[in-house]
């Protein structure tokens, strides 16, 4: 208590300084007076009495100082003095301060912005209760398109019964629904979930309730839980929506609650439904079909269970299933189930990109700090005299160091403050980038933790800078002053440090430039990729007319939809400027989600080859011409390939090469196969190949072409069909007219994916472009800073060696020779930096291999280009100080 009281009194003492000083002086003088009076009383002469009294006091000023230290907070005072002093000294070196602050602001700002993204997307704990116990199960097998097969209900059942270390196993089946609203229909992304889903996920409702096991099975009312994001967007956060009925897929569903904000995988979600919402999910096909896989699985580790235990047990169950149901698992395909922590799976797409950007930003900071360190060192040399004088006047080394620290802190904090502005702008850009990679992009914000990171970074930078400055050693001030030296020795060491810093700067710049070069080339390669479509003047719009239930169970609705699609097609084809219009599903360049095993007649696969899987797509006779997909062999579909005519298909080149290498596929027969056909509304009849279409880049320009089987639109269900319109020019101008046609024929249907081929391409390239642009701007920044660094260090070296140069010149060295000497000095640093940088770039390239496309991680052209560029800039930076050295006038320097 007394300590606290004393502390408060001291803090108060800071503010009552002046009054206390007068008081103290009077008290001490009174003491002297009384002692003097006493001495006089003892018979001393008054002068002698006073002298004795003052002598005994031990110095009134010193005493006042001691009391003052005791009374206030001396360190606060001296820090205030340090700050005042630092501000004054920085005001004198305004250019220096500005350069340092801007350099640091760029470094700190970039790091803060990217750290906020890394934290939001990768590091922050999940909002789910005990989110670290949550796992995602991924079922995959060998072969293209088989890296995430999802699960069938019987498989989930086996896992639920056979894995004790998973406390809860929940099913979640992505499902698109059409939500009817006042302003027309809208397709929403939903998930059909089992009643234990929310319990397993550890999520609760902010309004109303979530589903529970009682909502499972048939014969219960259909209900939905809105996600927080969708609720805010569509219902503006109105809690009154809970309890109301919405029309989803043409049936009435009760909204029972709104979920807390949470990320979903693999897609963002609008609403979660109980299973009764989909007849299909209660059908025998779904419940009994072991290879009818459309269910994602999340699970929660049982208390005390470890991830490894769960993995072992899941592996055992998977092996048992494959043993027991041989027809559902081709042994050659190596079915396997991975158990992945949920937070990892959420970040898996973003991880590499984000760490790359974080690394690039860290490199920029390293270069900035190296540069500021060099500036500080140089400034330190000019200030040595001042420091020596301060030391001589009684400042200890600790005090000097603190003074420098305060100065550096002021600089870095000013840099950080400016960096915040950069970070705020940067985060907006980065969030739009992160949205493409991560479902957690909405969790990115500049919060306390991020600012804490920034503050820690600033203090660390300031500390490093302060430690770099060399200070006079205790006890050596006097000799330094006596010798009249304006500088202290130790210059050689410092020079070495400066040079090392320059080498680091060059090396790091090379690494960044190489990374930027590789990403830029990736982007260029990607933009050059042939989509497989002959023209970019193609407009697509998807118009799903039927709900999934209607599609599966209502042949009359299906026939009616086909009539309406054909009507839309005809009217669109009649629009001015239109070359051709077709119908198909899915639209060109979009990936089909319908994938089945496929076989060819009379072709046995080599033993151990997994059964190929092919995308099922539908196309009207006009589709290929409208989309600009070239027909390599055979013919396109004809009007005569109607519902009752012979089964025909067109396959893509990948599938043709797989089944019929070196042969003419036209006239051969293929068929869908696999156990799943027992449940699917599609037959395993033989179908005659009538043509081979060129490959198209579906699902992204960097995606591999998968095998594709086109079926005539008339011979297949009208899956979420759409229009493909080709025009002679400016196809985007047709959007309003085409939309009017669709609206008139299908007033309540949603219209989706209204995009031109050029837009598809751009969407595939743009995340890479942002990547490349970010890393390139980091690279350019780094090079500029490094160039300033080289020039600065050489300029300093020249000014420090003016005397020496003067002597050399007066002894006959020509100005050209002096210039070469300085250039050589810079050249050595540059060469070391380049060599180190190329080695670093080699490793950096390997790390970022996953982000590259069409370019090798050690692409020689990129590396040579970067090295030449860096060398050119570096030599340019050396040139200026070298010229200055060459212009040294020996007559002047020698006199100085």
């Amino acid at each position, binding site marked *: 208590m007394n300590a606290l009281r004393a502390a408060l009194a001291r803090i108060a003492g800071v503010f009552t300084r002046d009054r206390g000083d007068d008081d103290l002086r009077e008290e001490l003088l009174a*003491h002297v007076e009384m002692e003097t009076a006493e001495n006089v009383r003892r018979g001393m002469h008054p002068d002698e009495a006073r002298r004795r009294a003052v002598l005994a006091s*031990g110095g009134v000023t010193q005493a006042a100082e001691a*009391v003052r230290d005791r009374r206030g907070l001396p360190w606060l005072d001296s820090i205030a003095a340090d700050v005042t002093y630092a501000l004054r000294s920085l005001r004198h070196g305004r250019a220096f301060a500005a350069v340092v602050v801007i350099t640091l602001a760029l470094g700190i700002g970039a790091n803060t912005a990217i750290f906020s993204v890394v934290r939001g997307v990768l590091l922050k704990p999940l909002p789910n209760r005990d989110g670290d116990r949550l796992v995602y199960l991924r079922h995959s097998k060998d072969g293209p398109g088989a890296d995430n097969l999802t699960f069938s209900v019987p498989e989930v059942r086996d896992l639920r019964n056979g894995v004790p270390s998973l406390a809860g196993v929940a099913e979640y089946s992505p499902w698109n629904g059409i939500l009817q609203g006042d302003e027309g229909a809208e397709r929403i992304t939903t998930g059909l979930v089992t009643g234990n889903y929310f319990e397993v996920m550890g999520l609760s409702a902010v309004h109303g309730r979530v589903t529970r096991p009682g909502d499972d099975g048939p014969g219960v009312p259909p209900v939905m839980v809105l996600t927080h994001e969708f609720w805010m967007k569509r219902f503006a956060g109105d809690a009154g929506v809970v309890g109301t009925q919405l029309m989803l897929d043409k049936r009435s569903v009760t909204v029972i609650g709104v979920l807390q904000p949470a990320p979903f995988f693999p897609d963002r979600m609008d609403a979660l439904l109980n299973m009764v919402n989909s007849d299909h999910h209660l059908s025998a096909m779904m419940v009994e079909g072991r290879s009818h896989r459309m269910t994602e699985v999340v699970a929660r580790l049982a208390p005390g269970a470890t991830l490894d235990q769960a993995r072992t047990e899941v592996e055992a169950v998977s092996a048992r299933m494959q043993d027991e149901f041989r027809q559902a698992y081709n042994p050659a395909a190596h079915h396997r189930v991975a158990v992945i922590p949920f937070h990892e799976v959420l970040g898996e797409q973003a991880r590499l990109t984000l760490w790359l950007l974080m690394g690039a930003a860290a490199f920029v900071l390293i270069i900035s700090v190296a540069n500021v360190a060099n500036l500080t060192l140089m400034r330190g040399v000019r200030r040595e005299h001042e420091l020596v004088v301060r030391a001589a006047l009684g400042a200890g080394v600790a005090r000097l160091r603190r003074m420098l620290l305060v100065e550096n802190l002021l600089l870095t904090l000013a840099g950080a403050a400016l960096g915040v502005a950069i970070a705020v702008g940067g985060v907006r850009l980065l969030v739009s980038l992160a949205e493409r990679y991560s479902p957690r992009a909405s969790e990115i914000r500049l919060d306390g933790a991020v600012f804490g990171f920034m503050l820690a970074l600033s203090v660390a930078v300031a500390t490093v800078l302060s430690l770099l400055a060399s200070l006079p050693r205790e006890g050596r001030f006097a000799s330094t002053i006596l010798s009249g030296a304006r500088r202290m020795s130790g210059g050689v060491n410092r020079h070495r440090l400066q040079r090392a810093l320059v080498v680091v700067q060059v090396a790091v710049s090379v690494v960044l430039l190489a990374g930027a070069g590789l990403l830029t080339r990736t982007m260029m390669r990607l933009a050059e990729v042939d989509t497989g479509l002959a023209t970019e003047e193609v407009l697509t719009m998807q118009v799903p007319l039927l709900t999934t239930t209607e599609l599966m169970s209502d042949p009359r609705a299906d026939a009616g939809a086909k009539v309406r699609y054909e009507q839309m097609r005809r009217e669109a084809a009649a629009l001015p400027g239109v070359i051709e219009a077709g119908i198909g599903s899915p639209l060109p360049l979009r990936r089909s989600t319908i994938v089945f095993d496929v076989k060819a007649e009379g072709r046995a696969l080599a033993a151990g080859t997994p059964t190929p899987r092919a995308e099922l797509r539908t196309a009207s006779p006009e589709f290929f011409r409208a989309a600009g997909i070239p027909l390599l062999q055979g013919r396109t579909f004809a009007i005569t390939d109607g519902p009752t005519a012979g089964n025909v298909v067109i396959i893509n080149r990948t599938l043709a090469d797989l089944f019929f290498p070196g042969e003419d596929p036209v006239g051969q027969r293929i068929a869908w196969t696999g156990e799943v056909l027992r449940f699917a509304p599609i037959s395993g009849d033989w179908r005659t190949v009538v043509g081979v279409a060129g490959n198209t880049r579906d699902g992204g320009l960097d995606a591999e072409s998968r095998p594709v089987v086109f079926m005539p639109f008339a011979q297949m269900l009208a899956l979420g069909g759409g229009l493909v319109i080709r025009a002679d020019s400016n196809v985007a101008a047709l959007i309003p007219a085409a939309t009017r046609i669709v609206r008139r024929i299908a007033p309540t249907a949603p219209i989706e994916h209204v995009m031109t081929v050029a837009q598809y391409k751009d969407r595939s390239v743009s995340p890479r472009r942002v990547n490349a642009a970010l890393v390139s701007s980091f690279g350019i920044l780094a090079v500029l800073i490094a160039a300033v660094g080289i020039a600065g260090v050489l300029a300093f070296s020249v000014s420090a060696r003016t005397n020496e140069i003067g002597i050399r010149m007066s002894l006959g060295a020509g100005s050209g020779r002096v210039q070469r000497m300085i250039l050589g000095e810079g050249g050595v640093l540059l060469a070391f930096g380049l060599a180190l940088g190329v080695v670093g770039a080699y490793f950096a390239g390997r790390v970022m291999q996953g982000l590259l496309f069409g370019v090798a991680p050690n692409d020689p052209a990129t590396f040579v280009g970067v090295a030449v560029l860096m060398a050119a800039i570096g030599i340019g930076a050396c040139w200026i100080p070298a010229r200055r050295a060459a212009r040294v006038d020996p007559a002047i320097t020698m006199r100085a």
Partner: protein
Amino acid sequence: MAEKLDVKQGTLALMILRTLDVLGPLHGYGVARRIEETSKHRLTLNYGTLYPALVKLEQEGFVTAEWRQSENNRRAKYYSLTPAGRRQLAREAREWNQTADLIAAFLAPRREAP
């Protein structure tokens, strides 16, 4: 003249408290004189030692200070013991006696083995 001693760390506060306890309110000079006399001039207090100690005691609430007229009509700052100071004195005196006994026992002349 007796050997000069430095004021041991922590003992000065006790001496000041005790002085104020015995003599009542007193100015800094009076405290210094009293301590020097009590120590038979083996201790000398310069201001830089005495006054910070007084300030500290004041901050801790063991003494209060006020300006008064001194006996020979001079303005001086008088320090007096607070109730908390009195308790602190009792506590410190007790602890000091215990410590002194303990040290004395340690430093007692070695007894010869029988």
